[in-house]
């Protein structure tokens, strides 16, 4: 291409960079390759359309009859030569060349040329050979007007890219990133899974959904209490209180630390179902204020580290934190624990 530009520049007296620029602009306006414009300015026959576009899945030789292409070696000739060179029937050559071209993502002509041992005019410029149907790009002359525009298979517009960009990858598949293919699978699957998972909207308590009171029709908490009261609040409040006051010794997840672990049901071994009041009492009094030498159903010895929370937290707060411990770590049923700890009345 440089050569062409230099030649035009020399013959017209226009600086080479301007020739280059205007040719690109022209090519862009016309939607044709720069080379084609340059070649025409230089007054020469356009070499076979360079750089076929990334080949179609099937170059479909059957549907792309070689149009008269005076300048280049026609495909038929190529096939004939290749058949001669390989000693195979022409039809077979054509077919296998098509398959090979598809596999390697290059033009059929390039394959044929290789087999025939011919240098293609433009072969050095682009990895791909002539376009599937190098008809008009190679033929500045009139094109059979009778067949146009419906039937004539146009030469795909060759990229004007080689000049400034590295040659495009010849394989069609590589035009689109593989990620896109993954997206095509993932997104619909995700959408279908979503429909299957929540056909009728989220359950109460998730995604902001609330329950509806059947009598008043108002939005209420999932337990039927007015929103902001009732069990949801007790549990959450307990969780926050636990994080604030208890987690430092018993662990964020109740796994234990300075104080004994509660997770995995351990808390209910000490204070079984129905003994929430003892649990509350223990938290309220702490080990220093505990009247007996042992505590809980397992008669654990009072070790002395448990501080009394009676002065720091209200009775309701202690009940809430106990509720949280019993439900979150002990696995007790929320409603049972609530009744047991006397929080149903407290919520009003």
């Amino acid at each position, binding site marked *: 291409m440089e050569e062409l530009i230099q030649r035009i520049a020399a013959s*017209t007296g*226009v600086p080479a960079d301007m020739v280059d620029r*205007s040719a*690109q*602009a*022209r*090519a*862009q*306006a*016309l*939607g044709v*390759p720069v080379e*084609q414009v340059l070649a*025409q*300015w230089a007054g020469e026959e356009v070499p076979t359309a360079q750089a076929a*576009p990334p080949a*179609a*899945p*099937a*170059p*479909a030789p059957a549907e792309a009859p070689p149009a008269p292409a005076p300048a280049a070696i026609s495909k038929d000739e190529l096939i004939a030569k290749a058949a001669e060179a390989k000693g195979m029937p022409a039809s077979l050559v054509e077919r296998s060349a098509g398959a090979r071209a598809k596999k390697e993502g290059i033009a059929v002509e390039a394959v044929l040329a290789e087999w025939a041992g011919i240098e293609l005019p433009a072969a050095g410029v682009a990895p791909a050979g002539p376009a*599937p*149907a190098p008809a008009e790009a190679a033929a*500045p*002359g009139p094109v059979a007007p009778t067949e146009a*525009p*419906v039937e004539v*298979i*146009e*030469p*795909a*517009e*060759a990229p*004007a*890219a080689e000049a*400034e960009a590295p040659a495009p990858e010849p394989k069609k598949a590589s*035009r*689109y990133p593989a990620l*896109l293919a993954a*997206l095509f699978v993932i*997104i*619909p699957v995700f959408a279908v899974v*979503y*429909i299957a998972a*929540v*056909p*009728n*909207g989220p359950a109460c308590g*998730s*995604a*902001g*959904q*609330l*329950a*509806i009171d059947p009598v008043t*029709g*108002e*939005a209420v908490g999932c337990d039927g209490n007015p*929103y*902001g009261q009732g069990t949801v609040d007790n549990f959450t409040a307990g969780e926050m209180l636990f994080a604030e006051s208890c987690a430092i010794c018993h662990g964020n997840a109740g796994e234990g630390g300075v104080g004994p672990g509660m997770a995995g049901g351990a808390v209910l071994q000490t204070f079984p179902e129905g003994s929430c009041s003892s649990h509350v009492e223990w938290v309220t009094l702490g080990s220093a204020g505990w009247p007996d030498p042992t505590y809980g159903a397992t008669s654990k010895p009072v070790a002395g580290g448990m501080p009394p929370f009676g002065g720091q937290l209200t009775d309701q707060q202690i009940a809430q934190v106990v509720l949280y411990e019993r439900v979150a770590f002990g696995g007790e049923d929320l409603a049972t624990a609530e009744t047991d700890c006397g929080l149903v009345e407290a919520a009003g």
Partner: protein
Amino acid sequence: MTTDLADNDVQEPAVPPSPVTDHGPSGLVRAHLVIASVFLVVATLLLAAASIELAVPGAYSGIVLFSYGRLVPIATAALLYGWLTIGLIGAIYYILPRLTSGPLRHEGAALVALILVTVGVATGMASIYLGASEGRAYQEMPLWSDVLLLAGFVLVAWVATATVAHRRDRLGPAEWYLVAATWWLVLISVVGTLPGVGGYAGEIQSSFYRAGLTGLWFAAAGVGVVYYLIPRLAGADPIQPSAVSVLGFWSLAFVWAATGPRDLIYGAGPDWLETLGVAASIALVVPVAVIVTDFVLEMRGRWLQIPDRVTLRFLVAGGAMLAIVPLADIVATTRTSSAIVQFTGWVAANDALMFLGAVSMWLFAFAYHVLGTGASPAREQVATWHYRYTMVGLGLVLVSVWLGAALAGFTWASGANSGLFVDTGAGFFNTAARLKPYLGVAAIGMAVYALAQGLFVVGAFSPVARSGPELPAVDAEPIDLEIEGGVATVRWGQLRWGAVSLFLIVGTMMWFLPSLDPAIASSTILADESRIYPAGSAEARGRAVYLREGCAVCHTQEVRAVVPDVGLGPVSVAGDYVHEDPIQRGYRRLGPDLMHLGSREGSNSYEFLFAHLADPRVERPWSFMPAYSYLSDADLDALAVYLTSLK
């Protein structure tokens, strides 16, 4: 491909043609662009005026035109139907002949269509101003305007179809999008023109209409323009039809209209429909990913050209905005985030991203491309400043409205916990005060955007360029986008039947089936009898005023079973709306929800409402509601009676 390339250019190697973009548009295309630009200027000025009204409450007290509820529908009509629609139609007339190497068929019909659409939009805007609003979002224009528009759109589809009809097969992606978009526009407009179904089913119909108009017309036609422009502006090879672009086209066709019900999340409609809308919104990523990928692949290796060419700047900016659209929409769609941002300004910002952003950007690029900005350095300069101010203005609008929406959403969601929201006055006091700065920035941004459009008019149409270098007369340069290959080829017939039947399938699913859903079908049994308004009653007249003044632009009438709505009264069901047509569900809460206003302590008395409507800031200094002092006493009375009847 024809031979004129050789004929025209081979003989003049000595003088390389000047690097102009393309030969000029026909008078018809130019007329479309001129009219569209007038609507653009009007629309953006009105939108700016509306934004200023929110930031400076009472700025235009008592001026009917500048009453927010009328201003916004008028501006929306001018923007969507005037600027974008007429502009895109002009682009279609310009592009299709060039892609199919034939003349534009039926130019007379095209001219008639232009007149019909222009008159339709103009009368529609005037009708809203005069109080004939239909009271459906995006469809406020009255029936006669709709009919004019529909007639115009039918002609457009006919012209577009006839222009490509001689190409029996092997149309390229740009033509698929452009031609199919004209048909979809007709079909969508039929949905929008048909007298609405009453009750909640009508709201479902509306949501389908809005999403269809956005995706199947604006996005589809806009993408067609982009597919035509990028190769030319970037100097790349045209986008080839491929299995991927086929997939992109059909997934856009199938998915976009189906996203409609996401507007109704947590609403009184069937849950399965909302779920379908969410799934479609997720799936919207697919067509957008295809389009954006094509865009990026075309631009690969050419990014450095962007700063030099204002057309490319607009094109790329619009592409980037399109890439954000599905992401911003998903926030408004998934139920978790929707519970926060629904009824805030989030969706308004998304609409701005799509309409003031992506599609407008592409039209700017198209207008500069065909009007030959590059022909004059001065003009290119003006266009560059247009680009800068437009981007700054839009950026301010988007960021402030999105952030404000998030702030309002979280305030409402936490208001229930703190007890603030139960008293909506206090809840909205809270929101209103905290939103002030955001509304202020949005107003500045919108004003900048509006003023920038003056630069567009200068840059695109100024005589500077016409006296510039003569554009070389080049015959239409048909550029074929086809290559041969099994799956890559879309046959004409497939496109035709596929595009139409797909629309009908989606339409049936989105629009017809929901009305058979038990929740909707049985709603008459559970109907809210208090919402029957006998003709001539004060309530009926008040409701008419409510529609006319566009109250639904700022007030919703729907209580959802979510945290922000706790304390607003019974959760809305389809039966609540069954006697209304159209229902006034609304889509944004710039003011409080009014579903059960009549039952609400503190603001339910007739006296309070009458005074509050006449001058909102006497009782509530923080309010940014317009003062309805221009209404007659009889109207104010009827409106107050209607509002107290909402129980």
